[in-house]
């Protein structure tokens, strides 16, 4: 089972700044292990961020996003206590959703 994300959402002026770290190998499928066997690709493909059920960011990723991905962005509005929810889905169809209250 995937590990939790580390999400921060803070009101800055009239926007909310979201910063997230995700636990994921982001294996490219191009690396070989010590025995020379290719390590299969394993990476997050879709990310969706919602604020009060409205999508504020949606992304498609390839394996070139770095291991343990980091993402930071801002959306207009958002009040302290509102929920910011983030979901990712990887190519194994594993998924993880975490949410945080805006601080």
């Amino acid at each position, binding site marked *: 089972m995937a590990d939790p994300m580390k999400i921060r959402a803070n009101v800055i002026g009239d*926007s909310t700044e979201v910063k997230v770290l995700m636990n994921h190998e*982001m294996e*490219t499928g*191009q690396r070989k292990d010590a025995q020379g066997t290719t390590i299969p690709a394993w990476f997050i*493909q*879709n*990310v*969706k961020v919602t604020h009060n059920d*409205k*999508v*504020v*960011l*949606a*992304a*498609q*990723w*390839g*394996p*070139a*996003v*770095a*291991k343990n*991905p*980091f*993402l*930071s*962005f*801002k*959306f*207009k*509005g958002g009040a302290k206590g509102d929920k910011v929810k983030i979901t990712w*889905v990887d*190519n194994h169809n594993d998924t993880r959703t975490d949410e945080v209250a805006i601080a």
Partner: protein
Amino acid sequence: MDTSRRQALKGGGGITLFALLAAAGWLAPEDAAGADAWNKNAFETKSMDETMKALGGGTPAQSKDITFFSTPDIAENGAVVPIGITSAVPKTESIAIMVEKNPNMLAAVFEIPAGTEPTLSTRIKMAQTSNVYALVKADGKYYVASKEIKVTLGGCGG
């Protein structure tokens, strides 16, 4: 061999890829809501040649309104390269990051709904020193900016 690639780029090789992607509809605004679709073809684009075969779609204009921030000229390690992109192009709908010399060019696409600021930062992998492209779709049109990032390696053990 590199010459032809460089020329391809200058001559709009990069453009055809964008056109392909646009034609494939992966940057369509309706994707923004339900981003569960993953455009396999777009992420498997391996070389300029491949993309040049596919034609059609719009041409991204070089834009000074797209800027990189917190993005170093040199990455100490290609496994983690910080990339920050801001688009000042009005009605920015999406931002994509592409790395010319990676095994697959496209690294990530971000759909930017109205109300979300067209600025974001993330971290990518780079196989080697390369141009990195920030492709912006705004009001149905494509814009692009690029930056070369050098990748170094080193250490004692070798």
